[in-house]
């Protein structure tokens, strides 16, 4: 039986949404703070555990848990950044990179020591909507993750294009020194970036805890795809990260249908093949610098 392409695209949009929520924050930090944060996956894990606690012990609905995880993870991420990354702000990219790798390891194993090895799944109530005439189905959970991501994207767009803080962020991203002499409080901008990036990671964490489980590796497991999506879209570009995430997600799912059955495990590899091709043809990523800074 042939798998309808529409079905694969829906699955791809879902996977792309998981990736996008992480990739937007990752690329914001890269663009504004000028560091590759390998601990970003652990911020997602914080969100997963907060979401779990909010639903199971707090009795909240999953949408409410998303809001709580967004707020708490934003604060946690900001505090961590203030304590670890900000004092090293002038140290350069490599020390910051090493700090993020070390911080990721410490956080990941800290979760393990505190929470143990047990998986914790969030109870869910899923409704499946079937569109047999078109040969696909979609669940309420899938619609929720796509919807939450779309809301995040719209809010981000409005924030970056219509608010003073967002415009200042873009200015700082283009040229921090120039922004500084223009009177922009770049420290305030960095704080805002950490809060936004961590908050989005928290939302991604709740989504992953619902589909998988809250466990110490849940965020780290997504990190490679998140980084790939950010680079694919054009590192530093939130819009590019969104494009890259959905291309990656759809590429992963659609390729399953086209690969021979013995090679279906190469579906994720196919996504990286796309990345390599894009980087060879367009080294700056899909969304180029002009678009990013316009």
């Amino acid at each position, binding site marked *: *039986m*042939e*798998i309808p392409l529409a*079905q*694969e695209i829906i*699955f*791809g949009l*879902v*996977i792309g949404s*998981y990736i996008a929520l992480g990739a937007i924050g990752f690329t914001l930090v890269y663009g504004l703070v000028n560091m590759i944060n390998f601990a970003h996956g652990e911020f997602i894990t914080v969100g997963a555990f907060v979401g779990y606690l909010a639903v199971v012990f707090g009795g909240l609905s999953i949408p409410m848990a998303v809001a709580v995880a967004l707020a708490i993870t934003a604060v946690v991420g900001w505090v961590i950044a203030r304590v670890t990354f900000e004092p090293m702000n002038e140290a350069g990219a490599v020390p910051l990179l090493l700090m993020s*790798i*070390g911080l990721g*390891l*410490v956080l990941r*194993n800290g979760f*393990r*020591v505190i929470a143990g*090895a*047990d*998986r914790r*799944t969030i109870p*869910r109530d*899923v409704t*499946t909507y*079937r569109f047999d005439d078109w040969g696909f*189905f979609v*669940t309420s*959970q*899938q619609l929720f993750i796509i919807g939450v991501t779309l809301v995040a994207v719209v809010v981000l767009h409005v924030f970056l294009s219509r608010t003073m803080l967002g415009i200042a962020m873009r200015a700082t991203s283009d040229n921090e020194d120039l922004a500084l002499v223009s009177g922009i409080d770049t420290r305030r901008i960095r704080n805002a970036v950490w809060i936004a990036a961590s908050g989005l990671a928290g939302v991604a964490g709740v989504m*992953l805890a619902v*589909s*998988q*489980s809250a*466990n*110490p*590796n849940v965020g780290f*497991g*997504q990190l490679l795809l998140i980084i790939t999506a950010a680079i694919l879209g054009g590192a530093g570009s939130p819009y590019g990260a969104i494009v890259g995430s959905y291309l990656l997600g759809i590429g*992963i*799912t*659609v390729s*399953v*249908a086209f690969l021979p*059955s*013995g*090679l*279906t*495990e190469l*579906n*994720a590899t196919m996504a990286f093949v796309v990345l390599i091709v894009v980087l060879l043809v367009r080294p700056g990523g899909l969304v180029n610098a002009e678009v990013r800074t316009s």
Partner: protein
Amino acid sequence: MSRKETVGTDRRTFLAITGTGALTTVGLAGCIGTEDDGNGGNGGNGGNGGNGGNGGNGNGETPDTVVVGQPGSLTGTWDFLQPAASDATDLAVQQINDAGGPLDAEFEVNRQDTTVDPQQAREVLRQFIDSDGVAAINGLYSSEIEPLWEFIQEQEVPIITPWPGSTYLDTRGGDKGTDETDDDEWLWRTVIGDTVHTAGAAEAMIDEAGVERMAILSATSAGEEGWTRQFTSWYEELGGEIVEVISASEGQSSYQSQLNELFSNDFDAWALSFALEDAITILRNWEDGGYGGQLLMEDGLRDDSLIDEVGEQADGAWIAAGSTEGPNYDQFLSSYEEVSDEGLHPWAVAAYDATNIIALAIHHAGETSHEAIQRSIGAVSRPDGTTVTTFAEGKDALDNGDEINYEGAVTDCDFTEHGNVWGDVVVERVTPDGFETEFTISGDELQDEIDEY
């Protein structure tokens, strides 16, 4: 709470923390490239009689303490199986010490985390052998053993492990049934191999369930691919047809497209060969898509964690694994339930047997040299001699000058010349409350079908 219980709990907590520290250290070392080629540690094995750090020796002197190393998965993909295995091991240690210990020495298990990573397992083994002077090893997974096989052989340290089902070990390990150690391969397992339980699972599907066409969704890790390969081989040999095998890498946020691809085929039942983390996602995706169909899951998922996490989604699925119920199971179970709340699985029971056999082999050897212990493993566990089911019984019999035959909690522990054991295979039905036996295929029946094992 007794002193021993307090100490045990503190030690576990301590080991969890130190294990994590070791993971961090090794992880960082890996990042900055400080690992050497890993072959430099063999010198520490010189003179297997020398477990001097623990007072053990090969000269007939009685040590104060005998230490056994337990490489475990305190973290990593299979960490959900470790708590029960640790508790079963600790139970055996407690019973062994209550009976006076091997060689009248205090018996200890030093547990360290390998994360089921071969490189880290090599470092842990090296520490056990070179620094801790362990008498024997109780652990190691298939995915650690296969890449480290030559390294393990070079160490010449007896290893009895409850974990590996790998077919790689079907013709490797054990003592070849001779008294000499020249032809020994130093590794034994107290859990039945994949060859046996996949044969049992295939037979149950064909003969008991009447399932003639199956599809498989399999992970790409060595253990899961091995299960898939073996099951496919047996199932087709028995006349069944595998219509499709979809492979997928681990750690994906959704397996919906793989399930969709799988269910585009026509079959009577489908098999799932994944570790728990991904199995949770897949079972939720399966329910969301309303695919239906009879599901058979691999043995690694036979754990209460599955019930806790997705018992409702998996309701009605089958799971094929080695039976937990060996000759001494009831006696073990009652003791285990007094000390642990962790759900039992075959590997935990096998860990109890491995610990007892190591202690009995040390007592039989009369010393803690690796060679003497290796020579004694078959001697205390194979048929002939007084049947014993606990260390206490075995120690009494050995002190009386009798030969003994340890009958285990999970199997009868009659090792083949390759260090393998036979046991029953059970197919259970998953319910939201636990596992219920559906079919049982006896180990004796399977022995007729398997040539070399």
